[in-house]
């Protein structure tokens, strides 16, 4: 699957590409308005990461161009302007999601994964990870047909880990994913530790392996 990154800040674009690319995803990057237009007219992408302010034009116009040509590419807007108007008009114009800079790459990856899942959703809205089967509509998790009783936050956390599997997710990224960005808890991450401990315990109790590893107090990683 191809992902197009339309972002004029090359370094940011490079980080996104490094983080997202794996055996399933392949990234292309363009840095200005006209080459972006060219790319979207020539190819189809599973997801387009679109910056609003671009040299040579606005990302909004690219979005409109996509919709005018009935392209089905998923679009995630990233903007330095955390403006509600941008968000509303972006989503109205057909973007699938909106993310404000500076974002966490795991957050971006989770959003991209969600967009791609929605776009390529072929009747079944399930997500399989090893023995875990997530029902994305009902927000439930089953192991060998037995439901693991997770709280809403634990479910969100698990889905977040699965969308970022084999990646180290920092505690800050986890906190922001679960409690939003106006929750100012930067000086204390004990609650994350407690939270993840509970999740691991429940998964272990259901008879699965311990997927989630702590990485030097920096963050956590989910691996097979």
């Amino acid at each position, binding site marked *: 699957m191809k992902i197009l990154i339309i972002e004029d800040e090359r370094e940011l674009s490079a980080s996104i590409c490094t*983080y997202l690319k794996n055996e399933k995803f392949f990234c292309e990057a363009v840095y200005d308005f006209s080459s972006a237009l060219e790319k979207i007219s020539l190819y189809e992408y599973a997801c387009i990461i679109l910056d609003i302010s671009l040299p040579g034009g606005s990302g909004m116009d690219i979005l409109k161009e996509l919709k005018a040509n009935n392209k089905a590419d998923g679009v995630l807007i990233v903007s330095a302007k955390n403006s*509600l108007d941008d968000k509303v008009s972006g989503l109205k114009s057909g973007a699938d999601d909106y993310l404000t800079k500076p974002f966490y790459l795991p957050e971006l990856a989770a959003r991209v994964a969600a967009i791609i899942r929605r776009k390529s959703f072929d009747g079944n809205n399930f997500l399989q990870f090893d023995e875990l089967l997530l029902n994305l509509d009902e927000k439930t998790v089953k192991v060998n047909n037995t439901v693991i009783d997770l709280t809403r936050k634990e479910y969100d956390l698990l889905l977040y880990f699965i969308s970022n599997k084999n990646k180290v997710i920092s505690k800050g990224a986890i906190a922001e994913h679960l409690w939003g960005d106006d929750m100012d808890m*930067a000086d204390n991450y*004990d609650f994350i530790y*407690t939270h993840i401990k509970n999740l691991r315990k429940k998964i272990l109790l259901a008879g699965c392996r311990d997927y989630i590893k702590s*990485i030097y107090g920096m963050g956590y990683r989910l691996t097979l």
Partner: protein
Amino acid sequence: MASIAFYILLRFVLIDQVDEDLKIEEHEIEMYVEKFGKLPEPMPVKDQVIYYHFAGRHTKERIFSNVTAGESYPDKKERSRQLKFFIAVKEQWYQVFVEKSLEGTNDISRSIIMISLATIIAMLAAGFIINRLLLRRLWRPFYTSLSFMKEFRLGQTQNIVFKETNIDEFNDLNKTLEQSISSAEREYQQLKEFTENASHELQTPLAVVRSKMDVLIQDEKLSESQSNLVQSAYEAIQKLARLNQSMLLLNKIENRQFSETSAIDIKQLIEQKLIYFKELLGVKNITVTAKLEKVVKTMNLSLAEILLNNLFSNAIKYTPEGGKIDIVLSDTSMIFNNTAESESSLDKTKLFNRFYKGEQSSENHGLGLSIVKQICLVSGFTIEYKFIARQHSFEVLFNLTP
């Protein structure tokens, strides 16, 4: 002063008049002497006395003087004007005294003074009243401008138009005021734009640094000590990002970018937040008691959420392990009480200031409560802080809702 001068002048004129009369009298006596060769019989005329003395020597001079007791009426003390002169009748010199009472002239001058005093007072009174009326009319544009200036708040741009007056000085004043206001307003706008732009411009480099960090921590070859270094840098970036975000938010609230309002069910929103923050409360073993009435207020939804998030996170952060948070919601106010860590109250005057840091919160950027205050301000609420029975109490008063 003027009346004193007037009195003196008047007296001078009147005495001059009396002197004139006395001279006429002298002349008459001289004529009589010339005609009949003897002195006229002193005739007692009202206000006038004439008498003679023999005089051994004589001078040519006439002497006018003021005397008090008329010599002919020793009982009646009157102020008189006296003329002394010498006259020769048949080789014999006489000194002639002619006295004229000044009482009459005194009466005249007194009544003239009275009349003029009354006139002056009447004129003064009239002048005073006219002045007041006129001045009030005249100064009206000034007071209009003054009251406008009292109302004026920088950054809350109303169109500044002073009424044109037909007084040049005031037009000048108004024009100067308009100019300085608009230049202050312009500079304030520029400053705000600068802050906003600066914050916006910071977002992209912050995004780059954070993304690089996210990539860096994926490196399997990182040793533990390297990881710790990365971790510290990561957290610092986090604080910077949050600070920047809060500044942007404050700016946006100030610029009234959250103008869209709707009816918000505050009770429901608080209940949602209680679920949202359940885990955080659980970790610190905080007991929450909430007495909530159904309250619906008109405000912006995003602002309502941010307000509650800030009040909650503030309360959670500063409540010690095992402490208590009480939330009371009524139609007039919303109160967040939380157990304090220390015995001392926070500084009420500085608490809501930007970058205010309490003793125990050096980690905090100090914008959270400024944001709360600003939201209250634009939503027509007020916020108060109290310290009661070892509890911090933040009360949002709704009663000012327009």
